[in-house]
């Protein structure tokens, strides 16, 4: 077990910079999720930690030792790939046992360790099958077993759930969380799925354009997004973002949309953000402002109400029993303690006093 630190890490191919001057301290035993849209540099960052890509500049330290010049095999890491990366001609048992075989662990001892790892992910009955005879979920569990069998100092997981169907994703996610908790191994996990990031991580690094936009616990990232990108990326349905003007603690937008923000210092163009669950719909006249209903969608556990408030369209999350006709007028109440204000030019968050 070890901490991992990235110091001013940069990776560029020709004119394209995938990762830009990135520094990140991952603590011993921490579950760190790198979250971002495709092309944000999260996989490249992980591949540099693994030693599959060479950094253009900067240092990578594992357990305090600089590993830039070490090949993957000397870094004592294990990696789970998006499309599993299993050895197709080997049985499940040989797949899991391969890292042990390379370390010269033989016979009964190897078999015992393989069996123990397989038991952790409930693969014991399938040890003699080949990867092509397994379902996607089973294959991913083989990849997990192969990663845990030799007790590495760091786990790297590159979108391990993205090839699984929705139902399996939820159960495998829980398995990964449980395994990491049980083994306590430092884990770096790459995903574009914000739910995975929120549910799994001790801390999340939200990345865009090769840079970390915010690094914090899932709670803070959700409650206090550092900028417009993070605000829009985290949350489903996404945060409502309204363009407008801000002066003297009051936000106004075209068409009569307004709100009180509690940020006194700032004046000028701004973006107001409010999460759908922090918007309440009620009878006309009873809230902060009235608006007409644009659409009503029942998702099962809630009703998503889209309203036209001036030029802006706002989504509110209402109780699943809530009903209204499209076109009718309702009142919106915004939870003043959970409003987010961003400067339009810098896109940075403006904190209320």
């Amino acid at each position, binding site marked *: 077990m070890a901490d991992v630190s990235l110091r001013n890490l940069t990776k560029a191919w020709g004119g394209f910079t995938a990762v830009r001057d990135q520094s990140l301290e991952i603590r011993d035993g921490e579950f760190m999720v790198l979250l971002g849209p495709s092309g944000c540099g999260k996989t490249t960052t992980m591949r540099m930690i693994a030693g599959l890509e060479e950094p253009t500049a900067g240092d990578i330290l594992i357990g305090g030792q600089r590993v830039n010049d070490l090949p993957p095999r000397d870094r004592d890491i294990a990696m789970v790939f998006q499309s599993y990366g299993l050895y197709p001609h080997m049985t499940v048992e040989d797949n899991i046992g*391969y890292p042990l075989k390379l370390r010269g662990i033989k016979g009964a001892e190897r078999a015992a360790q393989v069996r123990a790892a397989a038991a952790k992910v409930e693969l014991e009955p399938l040890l003699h099958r080949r990867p092509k005879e397994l379902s996607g979920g089973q294959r991913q569990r083989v990849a997990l077993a*192969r990663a845990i069998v030799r007790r590495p100092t760091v786990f790297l997981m590159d979108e391990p759930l993205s090839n699984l169907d929705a139902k399996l994703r939820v159960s495998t996610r829980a398995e990964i969380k449980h395994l990491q908790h049980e083994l306590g191994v430092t884990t770096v996990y790459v995903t574009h799925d914000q739910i995975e990031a929120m549910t799994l991580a001790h801390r999340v690094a939200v990345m865009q354009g090769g840079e970390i936009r915010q690094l914090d616990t899932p709670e803070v990232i959700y409650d206090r997004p550092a900028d417009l990108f993070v605000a829009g990326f985290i949350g489903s349905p996404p945060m409502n973002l309204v363009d407008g003007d801000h002066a003297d603690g009051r936000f106004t937008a075209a068409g009569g949309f307004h709100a009180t923000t509690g940020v006194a210092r700032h004046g000028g163009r701004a973006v107001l953000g409010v999460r759908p669950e922090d918007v309440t719909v009620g009878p006309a006249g009873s809230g902060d402002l009235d608006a007409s209903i644009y659409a009503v969608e029942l998702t099962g556990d809630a009703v998503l109400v889209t309203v036209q408030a001036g030029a802006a369209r706002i989504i509110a999350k209402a109780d699943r029993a809530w009903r209204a006709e499209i076109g009718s007028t309702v009142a919106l109440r915004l939870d003043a303690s959970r409003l987010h204000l961003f400067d339009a030019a810098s896109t940075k968050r403006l904190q209320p006093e």
Partner: protein
Amino acid sequence: MQDRRLKYVLILPAALLVLGTTIWPLAVSLVTSFRDWRLTRSLTPGPFIGPEHYVTALTDDPDFANALQVTASFVAIDVALTVVCALGLALLLRRAGVLHSLTRAVLILPFAVSPALVGISFRFMFNAEMGVFTWLAGAVVPWLQGYVWLADPVAALLVLVFSDAWRWVPYMTLVVLGGLSALPKEPEEAARIDCASEWQVFRDVTLPALMPVLAVVAILKTVFALKMFDQVVTLTGGGPGQSTVTLAYLVYSIAFRWYDMGYASAVAWILTAMLVFLAVWYMKLILRKPGGA
């Protein structure tokens, strides 16, 4: 009904062409192989004599036995050399890069040279007095100075293999490269992370995954090596002695130097039988469903 007839009309020219140039000659040669027909005696085919030619070839013809043995040696060395060299070159050329792609493009050139021409070129290059290879070999290994390569039975066969490998290796390299580029990268990367050395990655992951492609290359090359003819004519003429007489060259000699059309047809059909067997095996291999490998 109109459409149904039209499709046969459209296929007719191609069908006639194949019938006239392939099926008909094959049928005639099969019939001829059961007849006694020496052009030195008669311009028309002689009487049917049953499988006598086949029996002679397989039991009582030192020329046939020799050609079979020469062909077998040639095929074994040629196929092994081609597969190993193609695999090695493909692994070297696998990486991306301007020089790599340029080399890949230039690589196809030897295959564009006619095999007869390859034979003639190699005869000059292995000429004892002015051949560039003779000179090169002499420069590296002094006692090979002025060595008459094509006068030694074993060396002549090796030169024949060398000339054929020179022509085929680049093409087969491209086939292997195609196979390599179709392999998923992740198993190799997983192996590297699992502590495999580059050699272990190759032996345990890349090579097993590449086996179906290598099998195709080996069978294809076997088929073409079995038919070895052009370079024998232009490079060694079957010599020295009979040391480089392949089966195809033997058929040619029997038919057009000794004018024994019946016997030549029989030997040709023995060769054809081997080729058909390999072709069927090859088709089975490449038509196998993906993922079954």
